[in-house]
């Protein structure tokens, strides 16, 4: 009913993720995109002060305090992509 819009958004997001995965899966390269930030240029991004999860135990408490008092929920945890070390 009302949630059709939400479902369509989820479907769209999943489809986009699916296609992005196809990108990483294919080996054939007629066109190539060079990563514009080289692995040796990741110094600043790897700095601990740039991490959203700098204090994971505190983040969990902050999220709990808010979730208990606010009607909204979801989309809280942060993604990856830090130092790029191998």
């Amino acid at each position, binding site marked *: 009913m009302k949630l059709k819009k939400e479902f369509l958004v989820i479907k769209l997001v999943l489809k986009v*993720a699916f296609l992005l*995965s196809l990108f*990483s899966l294919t080996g054939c390269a007629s066109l190539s995109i060079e990563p514009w930030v080289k692995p040796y240029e990741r110094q600043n*991004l790897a700095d601990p002060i740039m991490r959203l999860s700098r*204090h994971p*135990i*505190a983040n969990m408490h902050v999220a709990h305090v808010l979730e208990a008092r606010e009607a909204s929920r*979801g*989309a809280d945890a942060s993604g990856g*992509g830090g130092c790029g070390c191998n």
Partner: protein
Amino acid sequence: MLQEGVVVVVIKPTVRLLILWLLSAISTVSEAAVLEADRADVLYHSYEGGGMKIDGPAILLRKKATEAVAFTAYYYVDTISSASVDVLSTASPYSEERNEGQLGAEYLYDKTIMSFNLRQSDEDDFLAQSLSVNVSQDTFGDLTNLSLGFSYGDNEIKRNGDESFLAQSEQYRISAGINQILTRNLTANLRVEAIADEGFLNNPYRTVRFVDTSIPSGVGYQAEIYPQTRNSLATKLSVSYFLPYRAAVFFHYRYFNDSWEIKSTDAELNYRHPIGDEFEIEFKVRYYQQSQAEFYSDLFPYKDAQNYLARDKELSDYDNATFGIGVTYLLPKYLSFENLRSEATLQWDYIDFNYNNFRDPTSDGGVGNESLYGFSANVFRAFVSVNF
């Protein structure tokens, strides 16, 4: 019927996506990501505001078993003593304790991290158990990280003083995220999460009030009645930027809406500034606002006025603002034991809550005209972290 919709629309394509990712992980073996470092954190937390005082300890442990496998454990306690506005107007102050434990495992294969987490939260009238699975993959020359998460939760609700009362609810969550490195100093993260709840979704003690001219107080009370389902979607954008003099600034924006017609937005700004080699100072500002649930009212015109009735201030039209400050002290190398790096942090958040259509029944003004409720809370966290 909406729950079936969730299953079909969301779970099937997710499974397909997970399989595709696993295949792509196997097929492109070139470089690898790394699991996070081992750590142990011990925390004391305290919340005081609106007549509630909650405090307790928490502990977090993270240990790699091999370069590809890590385990996490988390334990948290809330000791609650409450004399909040809801409690004062309809009941007597109470105290209780909530215990929470989590166990997690992570598996790294090439550029993919699969993680699995179990959670249980226990208080004498509410037992929540959930399990979640998450897959995260670095792609596009490691500039992009895609993640997909799924979680299932089961809750058992009881009512103190009523042995025969037992209710259930379930929650499904699915989230997708993309983290993108934009420049040497800038990253952005977009995350979407859909949540579906089903079952007994209200509080077994809370009541709504209605105008009742037949009794002296003029106000009658009846139990709240919520829909048996709730579906929501939250979208959050986060941006991190490294400032040239070595500091970090973070901006977050989230939009939320659900099938109860609640819409909310929140925006947050964080600034982290190192001072020398031993200190870090953090500042936080956050603003949150939400619109009311469709079936919410502070005062209904008569008994059984609607099919669904709610007077929970958390479902009202309200906003809050947070101001936070934190200081971290990093123990210098010469005071540290071998490879251990320790740090101690103190954080203080001041949160101001401002309700636009929830009234304080204990204040003056006459029924339906009491002053709008508002309160402020102080939240403290003190913790020590050891990285090894």
